[in-house]
C-alpha cells in the first residue's frame, strides 16, 4: 500500500477528482494547506503598507492506493493538475503498512476498494 500525497492548485481540485475517478479511485481526503516554494507570492496592500504573502493557498490530496494502482494514480494527477506554470505542485509517495475500515474493522487492500 502506498500513500500518494499531492499538493495542487486549489482550482484544479475538481478536475483532479474527476481524473482520479476515471482510474477507479474510490476514496480520498482533502485538506487546505499553504504552500511555500518557487512560485512567487503576491503583494497585498493595507493602508499604504505593501507586503508580500509568501504562503500561497494550495490543496493537499491524500490517497492511499494499492501498490499496483500507484503508477496510474500518479499519472492521473499529473495530467489533471498540470498547467505548465510554476506552482503546479508536487506529489509525494510513501509507504503505508496497513489500512483499517472503521465501520467493519476490516484490514488490508480490501479497505481501499
Amino acid at each position, binding site marked *: 500500500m502506498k500513500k500518494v500525497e499531492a499538493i495542487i492548485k486549489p*482550482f484544479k481540485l*475538481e478536475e483532479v477528482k474527476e481524473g482520479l475517478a476515471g482510474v477507479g479511485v474510490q476514496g480520498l481526503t482533502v485538506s487546505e494547506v499553504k504552500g511555500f516554494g518557487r512560485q512567487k507570492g*503576491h*503583494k*497585498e*496592500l*493595507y493602508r499604504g503598507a*505593501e507586503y508580500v504573502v509568501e504562503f500561497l493557498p494550495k490543496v493537499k490530496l491524500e490517497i492511499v492506493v494499492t501498490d499496483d494502482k500507484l503508477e496510474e494514480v500518479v499519472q492521473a494527477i499529473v495530467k489533471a493538475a498540470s498547467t505548465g506554470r510554476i506552482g503546479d505542485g508536487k506529489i509525494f509517495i510513501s509507504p503505508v503498512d496497513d489500512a483499517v475500515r472503521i465501520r467493519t474493522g476490516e484490514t488490508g487492500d480490501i479497505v481501499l476498494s
Partner: protein
Amino acid sequence: MRPMMRLFDKPAARVCAMTTLVLFCVFSGPAYGQAEGADALNPGDTAWMLVATALVLFMTIPGLSLFYAGLVRSKNVLTVLMQCFAITALATIIWVVIGYSLAFANLDAQAAGTLNLASFIGGASKAFLRGVTPDALSGTFPENIFVMFQMTFFIITPALICGAYAERMKFSAMMIFTALWLLLAYIPICHMAWSGDGALFAEWGVLDFAGGTVVHINAGIAALLACILVGKRDGYGKTPMPPHNLTMTVTGAGMLWVGWFGFNAGSELAADGVAGNAMLVTQISTAMAALTWMGIEWMKHGKPSVLGAVTGAVAGLVAITPASGSCGAMGALAIGLIAGIMCFLGATTLKRVFGYDDSLDAFGVHGVGGIVGALLTGVFASESLGGLGMEHATMGAQVFAQFKSVVVTLLWSGVVSFMLLKAIDWTIGLRVSREAESTGLDLDLHGEEGYII
C-alpha cells in the same frame, strides 16, 4: 394623443432623436430653479426626510453591499463591497456636479399638457448645486435634503447592477460604465418620472411612487445586458458557485427591508398618512413575497431555504415600490404574492432557459419585480381593490400608461447600456483575465483578501 407623444409610440426608432434632444437641452436650456409654492418649512417633515435619506443610504452601504457580498465566492467578496462603496462616492460627486441639475433644474420650461425637450431632461442651472442654500425649500422641507434624498436613489440604482456582473468585471470598467450610465440612463428616466408636470411620465399619468421604473427596471435591464455582454463566469454551470457567507446576505436583507421604509415612505416627502400607508404596504408585500418564495421551495424541493426567504423579501420590496403610494393592504398582499412567484421564475426558470449568468439575479429580481410592480400599480391603485384611487384614469388606461413607462425605460436604458458596454469593451475591456478570475478579484484588483482568520 398629443403630437409629442406620438414620438414614443415606437420608442426604439426614436432613441437617437431623443439622445440628440437631450444633449441639446443639457447644454442650452436656461434654468430657473425649482418652482416652489408658498410652503413654509415644516420641522416634522424635515425630520422625517433627514431620516429617510439616512435610511436609503443605509440600504446601499452597508445593506445591499452585504446582501450581495455574501452571495459571491469568498475570493471576490471585497470586490463587491468595493463596488458598492465606490459607486456611493462616485455617484455623490456626479450628482452634486451636474446630476441633480440635469434631473431637477429648468423646471420652468415644463408645463402640464406640453411635451417638449424639458419633458425629458432638466438643465444645467443648478450645476454644482448653485442656489441650493439652507433657505431654499422644496415643498415643506429644505431643498438640500431633497438633493440628498434623491442622491441616495442615484447611488443605489447603479449599485443594484453590480449583482449581474459580479465576480468578473474590471473595476475600472465598472467605474466608467457607472458614471456614464448614471448620466445617460438614470437621469433622463428620473426626470421623465419625477420632475413634475410636463415631464413625460407625468403627462401620461404614470404612477411611480418610489422608483419602479427609475430604479428597478432601469437597473434591471442594464444588469441583464451587462451580464450578457461581460459573459459568463468561468466554469458557470459546471462548477457550483455557492454563496460563501449567507449570514452576511441575511443581514443585508434585513437592512434592506428596514432601509426600504426610507425609500418608499420617504418618497411621500412628508410625514403623513400616505407615508404611513407606504410603510405599511411595503411591510405587507415584503412579508407576503418572502412567504411565497419559501412556500414554492418547500413544495418544489421539500425544504424552504433562507436564501429563498430573503430573496423573496427583496422581490416583494421591489414590486411594491412603485405602488406604495397608491395601493392598500389588500393590494399589497396580492402584489407580494405575485412578485414572489414571478421573481422566483425570473431567478430560476428564466435564467436557465436563456442561459445568461446573472450572478446574483439583479435582473431576475429587480428587473422582473420592477416590471411586475409597475404594471400591478395600475391595477391596485383602484379604489375598488382597496387602493387610494387613480386620479382620472380607468384601470385599463392606467395599466396602459404604466406599460408605456415600462417600455420606455426598458428601451432607453437598454440601448444606452448596450452602447456603453460595447464601447467600454472595445476600448479598455470589460473583463478581468481568466487567471485573475481564478485567483479571485480581491487580490487581483485590490491587492487584498477578505478574510485572514
